[in-house]
């Protein structure tokens, strides 16, 4: 369970991150967070992972406050960044996945087991000796997911996971997200492009200028998303039900 109580965060240059945001996300939900640039999507994810601490209000994950146990929160909330290249720190695929468990001070056999498990789950086990910069865009994104999964988080947050990916790459990442949902993870996905994920979302949040503008069932909110600078999916414009990109 994720809980935000009247959370506010402003950046040093005066720009607004989030204003008085209150929110509850039950375990196991797939929540899509949409909004134009600068609406606070990435700020929200960073607050959940403890990369930013709220200037006002409180963020708790599974009852743990980000102010009180940063390490515990980062273990529970895995964050997949928009730019995979900036997130991959290992010299090989396996080394990168081992980075998180090494920070948890786990014994080496446990780390090795987690690396195998995480790479298996994203279908990259056969590339464990590969150097990361030789992977395709979709594979890099999956590697960043494996790096997060090896820490066994209960929540995974994705910042624009489909940006710069071709159809095949989008489908690979989407399958991974759905597999995580299937295994009981709580998921937050930020996107400009609702079309690719909305068919699978339990809830849609619309952020606008750092405030929660709308929250609820996707089908109820989709017709008004363009008021908030987000393009309405074509199927919704045509009055049809959202369709999965996997079909």
């Amino acid at each position: 369970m994720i809980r935000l109580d009247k959370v506010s965060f402003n950046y040093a240059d005066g720009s607004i991150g989030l204003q008085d945001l209150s929110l509850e996300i039950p375990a196991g939900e797939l929540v899509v967070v949409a909004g134009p640039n600068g609406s606070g999507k990435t700020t929200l994810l960073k607050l959940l992972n403890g990369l930013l601490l709220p200037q006002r209000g409180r963020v708790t994950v599974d009852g743990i406050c980000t102010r009180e146990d940063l390490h515990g929160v980062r273990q529970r909330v895995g964050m997949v960044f928009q730019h995979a290249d900036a997130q991959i720190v290992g010299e090989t695929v396996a080394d990168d996945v081992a980075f998180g468990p090494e920070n948890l001070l786990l014994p080496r056999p446990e780390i090795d087991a987690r690396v195998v498990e995480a790479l298996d789950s994203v279908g990259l086990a056969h590339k464990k000796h590969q150097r990361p910069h030789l992977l395709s865009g979709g594979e890099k994104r999956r590697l960043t997911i494996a790096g997060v999964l090896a820490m066994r988080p209960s929540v995974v947050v994705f910042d624009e996971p489909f940006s710069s990916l071709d159809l095949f790459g989008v489908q690979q990442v989407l399958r991974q997200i759905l597999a995580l949902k299937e295994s009981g993870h709580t998921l937050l996905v930020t996107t400009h492009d609702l079309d690719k994920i909305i068919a699978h979302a339990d809830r849609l949040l619309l952020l606008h200028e750092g405030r929660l503008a709308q929250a609820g069932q996707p089908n109820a909110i989709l017709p008004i998303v363009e008021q908030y600078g987000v393009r309405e999916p074509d199927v919704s414009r045509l009055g049809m039900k959202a369709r999965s990109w996997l079909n």
Partner: protein
Amino acid sequence: MAELNFFGYHYGHSFVHRLDVRCKLVSLLFLTAAVVAAIPVAMGPLSIGMLLLWVALQLPLQILGREIWAFLTFLLLVFIVRALSTPGDPWLSWGVLRIAREGLQEGGKVVWRLLMILALGLVFITTTRPSDLKAAVQWLLRPIPFVPARKAATMVGLMVRFIPVLHQQIGETQSALAARSGIRSRRSLRQIRYLILPTMRRVVLAADQLSLAMMARGYQEKRTDPTFHAKPADGLAVAVTGAVLVVTLII
């Protein structure tokens, strides 16, 4: 984009690939010391040994060729300085410049030694997994007081990881420059001038994102240490290379 060979590990199963990284590092130090100390008579057998090692490892000869090509300007400079600065029997005089036969011999010997050291370093780099290299740095620095061995090892790992990314980014900026300004020469001064600022900006931004990504995955200085698995063959490698050094010193 990713064809950069510096720090390029080549996956393999040779005996050198399988050596414990600590023993491999000590062996490298012994052989390097032997090359530095060897008299010209001993350089012959050492060079033959180096060639045989290269062939036995089945490493692509292109690696040696490419790295030597990059290193060639430096070697040429070393040779010229040695040739001009060593006194002796004049071989060629041109104005104030005088090249002695001893200078040519001295320059040749220095270049030969540097080439051997380069080849040894390439053997180490191409047969050592980057994570083992990082572990070796940590192991080597651990006994030194006030040196943060874990942090230094992480830095080495990140450097190995990000050199290809940097190379790729420079390539992209070069292409963008060529597309907009028509500067075709990759080494023109104009292009270098326009290349530096955008590249630096991207590097700083990437470093910022990287530090965030590391924090997001709970990075802390105290982390699980690397493990080593030394075998009898590793001790044998150290003994053999140590013997080579001793024999070279005796000769």
